[in-house]
């Protein structure tokens, strides 16, 4: 059944970069991916059936987790393939246009914005870093640090000092954890071109397992990616009770010129 088609946008790239490698690539509706060019910019797009991708059906589909997952992965696969060809700016998931003319108008109207965004991401890659806190280990680390400052003499006195430090640490562990996460973020930013903290995606589940202290993402110069990875490892060793997890490489989703205030 062939109905009306809309145009799904994946990414915007420079029309100078070869996009011939994209042939054979299929998108969110299994459609062949193509480019729409205007001046020195090219949008990577696909034609998708409106019966699935118009506002109403799209909204329904997005409530379906399996559909959302499949679509997100296909969108990301195309965006990632474009990024392998050269610098590109990803579009947010589910951006659908009426036709190619509308896409050309977008490229013309926002030429400067896309140009600036492409300049920002050129030669850089996005990496995510999440910090998970282990409440027990973190409390012990805080107490350890506090007790070390106590010049207690006798063992009994030392024991009491340790005990006091442990009790105090339990009260301040939230604040200490937040403080450490902020320090980790600042250190990572020093090794990146840009960085931002995002709202934790995972809920701060009570208990030790998924206590997420930092959901950061960083735009890193490609020649500094090893240095950045080494910094993550160093920080992980430096902060007992905090486990760091690096994800990536990602297309520059978080640095595409979208202003997002940390919530």
């Amino acid at each position: 059944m062939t109905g009306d088609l809309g145009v799904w946008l994946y990414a915007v790239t420079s029309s100078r970069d070869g996009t011939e490698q994209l042939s054979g690539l299929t998108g969110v509706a299994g459609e062949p991916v193509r480019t729409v060019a205007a001046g020195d910019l090219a949008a990577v797009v696909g034609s998708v059936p409106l019966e699935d991708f118009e506002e109403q059906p799209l909204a329904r589909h997005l409530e379906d987790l399996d559909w959302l997952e499949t679509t997100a992965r296909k969108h990301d696969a195309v965006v990632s393939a474009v990024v392998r060809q050269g610098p590109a700016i990803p579009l947010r998931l589910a951006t659908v246009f009426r036709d190619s003319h509308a896409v050309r108008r977008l490229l013309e109207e926002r030429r400067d914005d896309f140009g600036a965004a492409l300049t920002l991401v050129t030669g850089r890659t996005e990496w995510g870093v999440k910090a998970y806190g282990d409440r027990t280990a973190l409390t012990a680390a805080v107490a350890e640090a506090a007790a070390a400052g106590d010049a207690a003499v006798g063992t009994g006195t030392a024991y009491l000092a340790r005990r006091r430090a442990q009790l105090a640490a339990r009260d301040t562990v939230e604040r200490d954890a937040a403080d450490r996460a902020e320090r980790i973020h600042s250190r990572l930013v020093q090794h990146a071109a840009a960085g931002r903290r995002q709202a934790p995606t995972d809920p701060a589940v009570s208990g030790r397992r998924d206590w997420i202290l930092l959901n950061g993402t960083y735009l890193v110069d490609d020649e500094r990616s090893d240095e950045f990875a080494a910094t993550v490892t160093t920080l992980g060793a430096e902060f007992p009770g905090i486990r760091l997890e690096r994800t990536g490489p990602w297309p520059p989703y978080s640095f595409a010129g979208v202003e997002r205030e940390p919530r």
Partner: protein
Amino acid sequence: MTGPGTEVDDQRRVALVDLLDRVLAGGVVISGDIKLAIADVDLVQISVRALISSISALSTPAVALGGAPKPPDDG
């Protein structure tokens, strides 16, 4: 709840959270009348919350340090 064999699936779900975090909250947002439709992120929050709660009971994901591939070299 999480026994042997669930680990790969758990890893996948965790990675999905990171992906959704980016494709739904990142990327360029186009506003104006030239577009036909755009996902209202608020609409998607419900699905994402359902997903998150389904993975929140996971065991700790394996540490991914040093295991990530190098970015492609465009030079």
